[in-house]
C-alpha cells in the first residue's frame, strides 16, 4: 500500500479508532492483527517470509536465552574454577553456533530474495506459466530489508545478555511486522521500540494532533515537492540531450531534492502515524544537509541504517582480537599515523561495501558503497592528520570553513547519490563524463520542456524555502512550544489548512496536466 494513498490513510484511521476503543491490554494485539493484515495485502510470499523469519529467530533466541540462564546459574553452583570455565566455554560455543544459525538464516533469506531473478533464471524456474515458485515470489516480501535486520540485531543483543528474550511469540512477531515500518523503515532496536509498543496508551489529543501534523508534513514533502520534481526527472531520463553539460548538474540537483523529500517525507508520515499510537520512533533524518563532512552526513541521513551497521558490524569487527592484533603489528612496522589507524579504515571500507550491498546487489551499489567508504576514510584521515596542527584547528572554528565544508559535502553527496539512478557503474561514469564535457542545449529552454510550468517551479522553490524554515524552527523547538500553546481550534485549523494545501497542490490523479490534457484535445 502506497504511503500517500487514500487507502493507507483510511487504514490508519480505522486502526487508530479500534486502538483507542478497545481495552488497553488489547492494544498491542490490535497492532499485531492490523500489521498482519497489512502484510497479507502484499501477497502470500510476504506472509510466508515473515512467518519463517519470525519463527526461526524466536525459536533460536529462546534457546540462546536458556543457555544464558544456565550461565548465571552456574556462577553460583559449580565448585571448581576449571569446571566452571570449561562448561562456560562450551555454552559460549553453543551460543555462538545458535547466533550464527539465526544470522545465517536471516541473511540467506535476504540475499535469496534480492537475487530472486538470477536465481530463478539459473534454476530454469523463471517461466511464468510453468513455475509456481515464480508466480508465488513475483511480489517481493514487504518489509524484508527492515525486519531481517531487526531480527539479527535482536538476536545479537540477546546473546550479549543485553536483555532477556521475548517469551511471547506473538509479541515478538509484532516487533518485526509493526506495519508503519514495513515500507520505508526505520530499522528499530528491540528495547526502545518495544518499551512503547507493548505498553497501553491513553488517548492524548495533543499528541494525536502533533502526529497528524507530522504526517501531513511528510505528505506535503512527498506529494507536492518530490512527486512533482519526479515528473521532470522522468522527462530527463527519457531524453539523452537533457542530461549533458549544465543539465546533468541540474538533473543531479533535482534528484537529490527528490530523494530527500521522498525519503524523509515518507519517514515523516511514518513517525507521524506511530506517534498517533503513542509510540515514538527513532529519527531517521536530522538536518543532513548541515553536515560538514561525509562521515557526519551518514550520521544524519538514514540514521538507523548507519547506526545498525555501526553497532552490530563495525564495532565488533574493528575491536575484534584479529583487528586489534593487526593494529598492534602495523604500529610496530611504521610510525606514521596511517598505519596505526589502518584497521579502522579497512573496517570502514568493509562496512560500506556491506551497506552498498544492502541497497542492492549490483555494480552500481557496490561502487556506491566503496565510494562512500573511501570518502569517509579520506575525511577521517585528513581530519586526524591536520588536527595535529594548531592553525588547522583554529581554521575549523571559523564560519567560512563551516560554510565551505557544508557546500562541499552537499556537492559530494549529490554526485554520489546519483549512482542510484543508473543501472551500472559504467553508465554512471559516462553520464558523469557527459556532465563535464558535453555541450548542453539552452538551459531555460530545457527547463520549460520538462513538464512543469513556471508557476510550478515557483511553487517548488517556495516549498523548499518553507521546508528549510520549518527545519530551523523544529530544531530550536520553537514550533513545538508554540503549537502546544495554541487553542484547540487554532490547532485544528492549521491541520485543515495543511490538508487543503496537500489536496490542491499535491501531484495525484489522472493525467496530472489535467487542464492541458483537456484543453489540448480540442
Amino acid at each position, binding site marked *: 500500500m502506497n504511503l500517500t494513498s487514500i487507502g493507507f490513510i483510511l487504514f490508519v484511521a480505522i486502526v487508530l479508532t479500534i486502538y483507542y476503543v478497545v481495552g488497553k491490554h488489547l492494544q498491542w494485539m490490535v497492532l499485531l492483527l492490523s500489521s498482519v493484515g497489512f502484510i497479507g495485502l502484499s501477497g502470500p510470499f510476504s506472509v510466508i517470509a515473515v512467518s519463517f523469519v519470525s519463527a526461526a529467530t524466536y525459536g533460536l533466541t529462546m534457546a540462546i536465552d536458556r543457555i544464558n540462564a544456565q550461565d548465571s546459574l552456574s556462577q553460583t553452583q559449580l565448585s571448581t574454577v576449571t569446571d566452571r570455565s570449561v562448561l562456560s566455554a562450551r555454552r559460549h560455543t553453543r551460543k555462538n553456533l545458535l547466533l550464527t544459525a539465526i544470522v545465517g538464516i536471516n541473511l540467506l533469506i535476504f540475499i535469496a530474495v534480492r537475487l530472486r531473478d538470477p536465481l530463478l533464471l539459473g534454476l530454469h524456474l523463471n517461466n511464468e506459466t510453468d513455475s509456481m515458485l515464480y508466480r508465488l515470489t513475483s511480489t517481493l516480501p514487504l518489509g524484508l530489508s527492515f525486519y531481517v535486520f531487526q531480527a539479527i540485531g535482536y538476536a545479537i543483543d540477546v546473546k550479549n545478555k543485553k536483555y532477556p528474550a521475548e517469551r511471547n511469540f506473538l509479541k515478538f512477531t509484532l516487533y518485526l511486522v509493526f506495519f508503519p515500518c514495513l515500507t520505508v523503515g526505520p530499522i528499530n532496536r528491540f528495547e526502545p521500540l518495544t518499551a512503547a509498543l507493548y505498553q497501553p496508551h491513553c488517548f492524548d489529543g495533543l499528541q494525536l494532533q502533533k502526529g497528524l501534523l507530522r504526517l501531513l508534513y511528510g505528505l506535503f514533502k512527498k506529494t507536492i515537492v518530490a512527486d512533482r520534481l519526479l515528473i521532470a526527472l522522468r522527462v530527463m531520463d527519457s531524453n539523452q540531450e537533457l542530461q549533458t553539460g549544465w543539465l546533468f548538474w541540474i538533473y543531479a540537483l533535482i534528484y537529490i531534492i527528490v530523494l530527500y523529500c521522498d525519503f524523509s517525507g515518507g519517514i515523516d508520515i511514518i513517525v507521524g502515524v506511530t506517534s498517533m499510537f503513542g509510540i515514538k520512533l527513532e529519527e531517521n533524518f536530522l538536518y543532513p544537509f548541515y553536515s560538514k563532512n561525509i562521515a*557526519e552526513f551518514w550520521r544524519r541521513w538514514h540514521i538507523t541504517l548507519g547506526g545498525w551497521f555501526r*553497532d552490530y558490524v563495525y564495532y565488533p569487527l574493528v*575491536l575484534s582480537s584479529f583487528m*586489534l592484533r593487526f*593494529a598492534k603489528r602495523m*604500529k610496530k612496522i611504521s610510525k606514521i599515523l596511517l598505519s596505526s*589507524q589502518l584497521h579502522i579504515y579497512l573496517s570502514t571500507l568493509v562496512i560500506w561495501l556491506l551497506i552498498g550491498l544492502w541497497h542492492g546487489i549490483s555494480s552500481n551499489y557496490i561502487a556506491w558503497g566503496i565510494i562512500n567508504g573511501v570518502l569517509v576514510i579520506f575525511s577521517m584521515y585528513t581530519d586526524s592528520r591536520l588536527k595535529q596542527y594548531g592553525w588547522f584547528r583554529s581554521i575549523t572554528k571559523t564560519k567560512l570553513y563551516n560554510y565551505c565544508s557544508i557546500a562541499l559535502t552537499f556537492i559530494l553527496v549529490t554526485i554520489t547519490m546519483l549512482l542510484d539512478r543508473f543501472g551500472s557503474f559504467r553508465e554512471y561514469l559516462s553520464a558523469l563524463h557527459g556532465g563535464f564535457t558535453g555541450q548542453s542545449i539552452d538551459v531555460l529552454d530545457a527547463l520549460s520542456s520538462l513538464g512543469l510550468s513556471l508557476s510550478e517551479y515557483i511553487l517548488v522553490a517556495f516549498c523548499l524555502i518553507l521546508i528549510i524554515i520549518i527545519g530551523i524552527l523544529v530544531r530550536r523547538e520553537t514550533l513545538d512550544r508554540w503549537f502546544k500553546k495554541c487553542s484547540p481550534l487554532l490547532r485544528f485549523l492549521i491541520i485543515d489548512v495543511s490538508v487543503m494545501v496537500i489536496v490542491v497542490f499535491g501531484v495525484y490523479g489522472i493525467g496530472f496536466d489535467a487542464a492541458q490534457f483537456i484543453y489540448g484535445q480540442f
Partner: protein
Amino acid sequence: MSAAAEILSRLFPDLDIANCDRLIDDGLLDSFSIITLVTELANDHSIKIPATEIIPENFNSLTAIESLIDKLINQS
C-alpha cells in the same frame, strides 16, 4: 593522569577533558575517535573494552569512561 585521560588529551589538545560531560552529545567524540581510544587502551594498556559497551552513556565524559574501565577490571 589515567591512561584514558592521557589519550584523550592527546586527541583533543584544545579541550578541557576533565570538565566536559558532553563528549558524545556535542559530537566531539565520534566513532573514529572512540575506536582510536579503545584501540590504544587495548593495545598499549591491556584494557579491553568489548563492542557491546560502546554506548553513548559510557563515553560522554572522562568520568564515565574511567568508571567503565574500573567496572571491566573488577569483572575480570
